[in-house]
């Protein structure tokens, strides 16, 4: 086992840059996943089958196929359609779209968990449809599912290394680049692996606390 502390020191500036990119992709991806997921969940409760069916089909398809292939698809096919985006934007869209199909299920379960009386009360007060959603149903639904949504943020964190395949220099990308330049492979990959554990373990502890407080 050869471990060179100098290589560790050399890699650190690249590592911090990679960490920043990882967190940026995660934050934007999570924002997109939370928003799109809500859209899917609400559309899946539409009264019109014409709306429900395509949304269900698309979300099932996206959820049951690999994120890696979806990233390649977006990266190579969007430019063919005349939409040229940066690698990071493509990665964020890929992550956000993939995980929106998971958050949609979480929202759906949360919405199903709101008692029918709440819908009836909203009808009795003749609240308009949007106000029923935003003032009555969603605040109750989202509170219950917040920890489950958090779980998917941690899951997404662990999928962010995949976006290095389309050329984003996040943590793994930086590690690959460093080892290509210096032929030190052991140190950067190990550091990145440890970094993931150091981020995701406290995050999962935090979520457990959150779950105890919000879900009763």
């Amino acid at each position, binding site marked *: 086992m050869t471990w060179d502390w100098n290589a560790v020191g050399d890699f650190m500036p690249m590592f911090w840059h990679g960490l920043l990119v990882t967190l940026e992709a995660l934050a934007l991806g999570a924002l997109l996943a939370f928003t799109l997921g809500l859209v899917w969940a609400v559309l899946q409760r539409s009264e019109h089958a014409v709306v429900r069916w395509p949304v269900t089909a698309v979300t099932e398809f996206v*959820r049951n196929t690999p994120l890696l292939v979806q990233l390649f698809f977006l990266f190579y096919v969007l430019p063919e359609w005349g939409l040229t985006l940066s690698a990071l934007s493509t990665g964020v869209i890929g992550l956000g779209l993939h995980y929106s199909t998971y958050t949609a299920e979480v929202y759906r379960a949360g919405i199903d*968990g709101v008692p029918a009386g709440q819908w009836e009360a909203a009808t009795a007060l003749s609240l308009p449809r949007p106000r029923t959603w935003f003032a009555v149903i969603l605040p109750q639904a989202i509170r219950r599912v917040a920890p489950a949504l958090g*779980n998917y943020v941690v*899951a997404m964190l662990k999928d*962010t290394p995949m976006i290095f395949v389309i050329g984003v220099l996040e943590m793994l990308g930086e*590690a690959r680049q460093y080892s290509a330049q210096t032929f030190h*492979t052991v140190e950067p990959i190990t550091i990145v*692996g440890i970094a993931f554990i150091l981020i995701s373990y406290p995050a999962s502890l935090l979520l457990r606390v959150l779950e105890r407080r919000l*879900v009763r």
Partner: protein
Amino acid sequence: MSEISWGLWKLLLDGVWITVQLTVFSAALAAAVAFVIGLARTHRLWVVRFLSGAYFEIFRGTSALILMFWIFFVLPIGFGWQLVPMWAAVLALGLSYGAYGSEVVRGAVQAVAPAQREAGIALSFTPAQQLRKIILPQAWPEMVPPFNNLLIELLKGSALVSIMGVGDIAFGASLVRNATGQSAPVYTVILVMYFVLAFVLTRGMRLVERHAKASVGRAPQKREGLRTRMNGGRGDELASSGATTAGGAR
């Protein structure tokens, strides 16, 4: 789609076979890891619980792709252990998805009513007999639906091996893309291939579930299609829904 010639189709079909093999072998390793670690986490000795808990937190905490890089590049350089790419991939997938599976096993075993175990003690069953004849037969039906989710996640995760040069479906696709210079057709085709594989796996696991539920005298829940796979269609599983998927952070 006509640009993809027969030879290129064959590349993709060879890839399907590799993906199927990878999924089957990794799932077997993951199942073994899941049962060993999951049961160890319910052990009465705290040392065993601590060690298996540490395994769980470490392998669940890191990303499967990073683990794969570690096994492919750090093991040979750092320790001199060079594995055949296929088996390195199986090891990486099996170890990380086994960690997720251990949570499923632990949860299902602990959900068996305590009176069942006490009855086993009263009948002076040995711990091994309790496990084999009382606990596992009742816990198994509860494990099947979350295992189904994990199996799909494993199938999706198997695409990562293409980065390492193992010739699975995604790798075949990159070759075909290079040969034809067109991306949309080939990536659409392989997304559909993955979807079909996932559908077949879900159907298969549905049969396993029906058999498992019937063997303890319970009727399976009504479900339609692939849908309702994620949360088992039950609100009370909500809080733990994350735990049943690959990235769950519980």
